[in-house]
């Protein structure tokens, strides 16, 4: 039986908002990876931020703060490959 693994992509209206969150998360030490947006997740912007399941809640809390960073939600996508661990 194969284990189903999910990735969490924070989606954005544009690169700028993605970079703003990336800088913010980096500042406070939450790991995230800039990634191309999976087609099934969004057509807003080609970049998204990949966060691990453990950190999704923390990221949501940060976004709930009034810091002006705009997102288009967080997409939960089933991983199709086990070639590499995308979340680092």
């Amino acid at each position, binding site marked *: 039986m194969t284990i189903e693994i999910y990735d969490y992509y924070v989606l954005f209206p*544009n690169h700028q908002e993605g*970079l703003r969150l990336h800088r913010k998360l980096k500042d406070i030490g939450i790991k995230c990876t*800039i*990634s191309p947006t999976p087609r099934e997740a969004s057509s807003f*912007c080609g970049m998204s931020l990949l966060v691990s399941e453990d950190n999704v809640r923390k990221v949501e809390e940060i976004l709930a703060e009034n810091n002006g960073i705009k997102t288009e939600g967080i997409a939960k996508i089933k991983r199709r490959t086990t070639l590499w661990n995308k979340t680092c």
Partner: protein
Amino acid sequence: MKKIIYLDNAATTWPKPESVYQVIDNFNRNIGANPGRGSSSKTLEAAGVLLTTRETLAKFFNLSDVSRIVFTKNITEALNTVLKGYLNPGDHVITSSMEHNAVARPLNTLKNAGVEVTYVTCTADGSLYPPDLERYWKKNTRMVVLLAASNVTGTIQPLQEAGRICRERGAVFLVDSAQGAGNIPIDVIEQNIDILTFTGHKGLYGPQGTGGFYIRPGLEIRTLVEGGTGSLSAETRQPDFFPDKFESGTPNTPGIAGLGAGVNFIQKTGFKAIRQHEKKLMDILLDGLQDIQGVAIYGPRDSHRQTPVVSLNLAGLECGELSFLLDENFGIMTRSGLHCAPLAHQTIGTLSRGTCRVSLSYFTTREDIETFLEAIRKISRAL
């Protein structure tokens, strides 16, 4: 090479800080990618350059929402976008008689389309008397447009008072900071500025081809240009969010990197130190000019009330001849003529003859000013 004294900084500052040259070179040499297109690490580095400059400008102008800073190729494009994107036929707009053609010409086009335009006459030294704005107020007044300082006389306008009047009466306050940003304080909150337009290549020490505008949250305008933004690519409709809505096509990323470095230079050097240096040189310049036979000086003649810009004429010479003689015989660069501001020249009484304009920057030295004064003395004596 012949030594050149560059006194045309109101047209564009030169030289630029060393860091500006370096940052632009570094972008072109080592980053080079197109921001917002795809998501390769290079692309993101380029997008990061835009964001960093936006953050630097937001801090500099005291505004909170960095996304609402839009980059344009220059302030003229910024002014056209906001004037034509906000005003509708039947609206009334008040502006001053010191405005540059970057404001007067789009307003003229809008006037032909049915927008009412009132020019408030400034005093002979170019100052706006704020209560005059109220005198011309109408029920349909939707906007006041004012330059921070005159490009002809350097006259600093009362932004704070004008902004307060607009806030009280419910009109949008649009500021043209082409002259002034980097020389005098521009504070979006304190001066009640709803829309701030800026150029990158003058007092902010960035390269030519940079500029933009800021619009306060809640205020919406139409676009002037639409196209690819790297976002919402599956749709043919223009994104409705900032800054993408107004930033179609590839931006001048190396230039914007340079603009960021220019503003950083101001912050590192100290805004006050720059102003102090320019004021000191202006005092020497104004004092010296007053003692030379035949010199007429326009504007406030007071370094506290003007940016480092002086307009003058020398009796017996056309302004163009004076600029030519300064260039040919002394290697001094000035600008003569009407400075794209016929309204301002009409206000100060020089529409028919123009002026010779001398403008300084932080890189102008005391020696430059003394050489200039000596040149004017020599020309005056020879007449």
